[in-house]
């Protein structure tokens, strides 16, 4: 055999490709952040670009906005406590007790994620506004005075945030509880410790780091969250950092440097939070908690079974069923009211929504962007994940770190950086869908990478190596072995990116141009400028559009899988 002929010298090819792609992705992340920091240091004319003078005045001047930072901390803290308490209670109930319908309830717990905080905020505004909220209408009908609840308060915002982050906390804490070897508790009991002692001395210390990690993660998310605070806080002029930034940028004249300084400050705090979170998760405290999933020991809670069941159902009711029913109900009314009247029902809202050019084009743009983001994102992020976790590229850790950075930046803040960065970019993409596409691909890097990495790590390396040993080059390998094995995971990643893009608000609201609108910001605009019934109809249409797109995709994917199997 002629090995000499084929014996190439050390190939720089893969290394070069990796460096270029890794570098490009890093630039995608760092370029906007650099502009964000530049803007925050601009002390000359706030409108001038590039800045006329640099200084720290914007940061020292943040003292004037102490109340906004205070608001943010207060809302985020309250919401975190509530979300973690709810998440812990649900996780314990569903993974460690014999509550009825455990399996089904556990599946349903992911639903709040699909409802989204925006939908929740719109629905809860209809339910809980002081004047005409459904709950307060009911309260007055029962003879109550004034109002029972007022959702347009810090507590209302925290309530809505907590409902949606509660399901995130649940998923994180349940994962920890399931990965604990039940033998650790059984050993304690065999040695004579009672149930309570075992719980306090063994179970709690083991799951505590996981719960703490979840709390910090959720807190960081709350600090950067935007939609609930916007929908519920704006009417009562209650601002958190993200909504204040949005206000400063969208008012006239805009106050870019101050907004940028706020963004940098928020970024710094969230960055620290994510660092702490990672530290907790990667530290040795998990030594006893292996990656293996165990069948957890189920505790017989006897009389508490039905109360705990009621707790789970109540959570789903306030986080999912009630909001969805409210929005759907409102979308069919002429004037939103709790009491059904035949002459109040109408399909006009849908007719209006579908006939408005703005809504039509926004819906179309959103779906187009969703498909584009997912279709470009999956191969791009798949390649990046492969580079990081499989190629043993030198510096893979650093690339991973950079690419996960958007996780620590609220999307609105990130979009602010992009706004500045791409305004000066020589190719005129500002105000077009292209800018939104780039923004989505950047802000969803962590989401996509984490999802795809999970899939890639499940596929054993030797499956690829054995193809290599059969003589297959990397392209052939990728086509015949790697891609087919990854396909189910990649389809899931595609769907996730699609859904996330179609419903993105924080980045879109800053970056969309007047001639290239997308649906979620259009829904928010409609909420503040037209009537709530039309907004409800738009929200339902968005949900339906996503559902239809997913159904089509599932059908296509199933056919592809079946075709592949034959």
């Amino acid at each position, binding site marked *: 055999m002629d*090995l*000499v002929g084929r*014996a*190439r010298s050390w190939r720089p090819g893969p290394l070069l490709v990796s460096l270029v792609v890794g570098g490009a992705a890093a630039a995608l992340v760092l370029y906007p952040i650099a502009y964000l920091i530049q803007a925050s240091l601009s002390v000359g004319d706030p409108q001038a670009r590039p800045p006329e003078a640099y200084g720290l005045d914007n940061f020292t001047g943040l003292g004037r906005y102490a109340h906004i930072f205070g608001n943010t901390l207060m809302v985020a803290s309250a919401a975190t406590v509530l979300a973690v308490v709810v998440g812990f209670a649900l996780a314990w109930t569903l993974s460690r007790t014999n509550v009825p319908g455990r399996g089904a309830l556990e599946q349903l717990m992911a639903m709040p994620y699909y409802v989204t905080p925006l939908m929740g905020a719109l629905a809860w505004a209809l339910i809980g506004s002081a004047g005409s909220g459904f709950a307060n209408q009911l309260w007055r009908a029962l003879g109550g005075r004034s109002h029972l609840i007022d959702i347009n308060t810090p507590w209302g915002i925290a309530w809505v945030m907590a409902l949606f982050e509660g399901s995130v906390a649940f998923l994180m804490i349940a994962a920890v509880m399931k990965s604990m070897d039940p033998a650790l508790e059984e050993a304690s009991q065999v040695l004579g410790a009672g149930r309570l002692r075992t719980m306090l001395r063994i179970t709690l210390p083991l799951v505590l780091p996981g719960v703490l990690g979840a709390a910090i993660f959720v807190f960081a998310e709350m600090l950067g969250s935007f939609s609930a605070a916007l929908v519920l806080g704006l009417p009562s002029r209650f601002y958190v950092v993200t909504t204040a930034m949005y206000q400063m940028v969208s008012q006239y004249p805009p106050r870019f440097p101050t907004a940028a300084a706020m963004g940098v400050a928020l970024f710094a705090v969230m960055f620290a939070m994510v660092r702490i979170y990672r530290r907790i998760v990667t530290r040795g405290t998990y030594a006893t908690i292996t990656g293996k999933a165990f069948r957890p020991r189920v505790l017989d809670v006897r009389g508490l079974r039905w109360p705990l069941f009621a707790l789970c159902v109540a959570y789903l009711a306030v986080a999912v069923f009630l909001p969805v029913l409210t929005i759907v109900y409102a979308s069919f009314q002429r004037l939103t009211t709790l009491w059904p009247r035949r002459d109040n029902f109408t399909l006009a809202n849908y007719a209006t929504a579908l006939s408005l050019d703005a809504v039509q084009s926004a819906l179309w743009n959103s779906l187009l962007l969703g498909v584009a983001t997912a279709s470009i994102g999956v191969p791009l992020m798949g390649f990046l994940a492969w580079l990081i976790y499989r190629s043993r590229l030198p510096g893979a850790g650093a690339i991973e770190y950079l690419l996960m950075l958007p996780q620590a930046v609220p999307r609105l803040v990130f979009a602010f950086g992009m706004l500045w960065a791409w305004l000066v970019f020589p190719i005129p993409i500002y105000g077009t869908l292209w800018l939104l596409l780039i923004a989505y691909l950047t802000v969803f890097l962590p989401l996509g990478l984490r999802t795809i990495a999970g899939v890639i790590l499940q596929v054993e390396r030797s499956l690829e190596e054995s193809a*290599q040993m059969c*003589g297959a080059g990397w392209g052939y390998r990728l086509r*015949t072995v790697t891609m087919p094995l990854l396909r189910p995971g990649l389809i899931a990643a595609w769907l996730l990116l699609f859904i996330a893009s179609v419903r993105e608000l924080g980045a879109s609201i800053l970056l969309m141009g007047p001639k290239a609108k997308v649906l979620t910001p259009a829904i928010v605009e409609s909420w503040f400028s037209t009537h709530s019934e039309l907004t409800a109809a738009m929200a339902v249409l968005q949900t339906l559009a996503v559902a239809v797109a997913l159904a089509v995709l599932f059908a296509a994917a199933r056919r592809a899988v079946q075709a592949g199997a034959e």
Partner: protein
Amino acid sequence: MSARQASIEVRDLAVHYGAVVAVRGVTFDVGAGEHLTLLGPSGCGKTTTLRAIAGLERPASGEIRIGGSPVFSSAARVNVPAEDRGLSMVFQSYAIWPHMSVFDNVAYGLRVRKRPDAEVTARVREALDLVQLGDLGRRSAAKLSGGQQQRVALARAFVFSPSVLLFDEPLSNLDAKLRAEMRVELKELQRRLGITSVYVTHDLEEALAISDRVVVMRDGAIEQVGTPGEIYDRPRNTFVADFVGSANLIRGRRRPDLEQEGRVVIETPSGALLHGTALDRRSGAEALVAIRTVRLRLARVPSPGSVNVWPARIRQRVFHGDFTQYHLDWDGRRLIVRSAASEPMAEGEEVFVSADPRDCVLLEE
């Protein structure tokens, strides 16, 4: 199936994982058509060496030649990608692709080489027959038992007539009984195919059973190279003596006055004389001699030989089924004897233990 045999030469091979040195300057040859085994405890660098030959691991330095051509050379800056080396490999995890049928798994290497369909079909059939899976071709690979997966992996590895076949602990995931069966089958298959092979295992019996030569490794370096017989009967040092089956190690002072050509005689601290084989090995005034536990013989009356017959007392007897292990009080220390004799000695019995001087091997230290 025709065999294309190639020799392998490994020179000063070193592999690093970051700061960890996994293989430190290893040199050995595999002759064309030879079956060589790399044997050693986990972490000794045997799998890393194999993967370096395969091209799945990039060595830090050294040279690997296959069939005379360099596939890796740090000096000449050559590194042929794994897929172009013309080798094949059976993985520890089998690495059977679950999304393909058995037939497609086996046909993979032939299709990569763009063989015509008729040839692919014929050769896959032949290969599946050879591993006794003739009728399973259409089955999905995800629905195979461990032993069947093993056979598919094997067929997939040799079907395209590679010049060298590499085995990375291929039997370690099978249960003991199946492992013993597969060992025999594997040996039979190797002989029929006649492909040069390098086999990695930590299982001594496996290594002795299927190899022409064995390389014993520890901590990334070679401890001994030899035929299975040489490795077993003439371990070079305490590590090999210990790792390759159980041995009694006896230390004593050299008695050159009693030694003849090729022989070594040592005197234990309590005065027993032990005659052994020197094998051209050197030692100081103190020397260590190894005797396999199965090479010691027990008797109730002293055997007629003139040397290496000592009185001892049986302290403990442990029945193992295939043999009985006796723990003897001998010369102020413990001596272990494995005996297949059907008539057991009783605990506490006074006996005579003897050894052929050829079975008592001087060790290097």
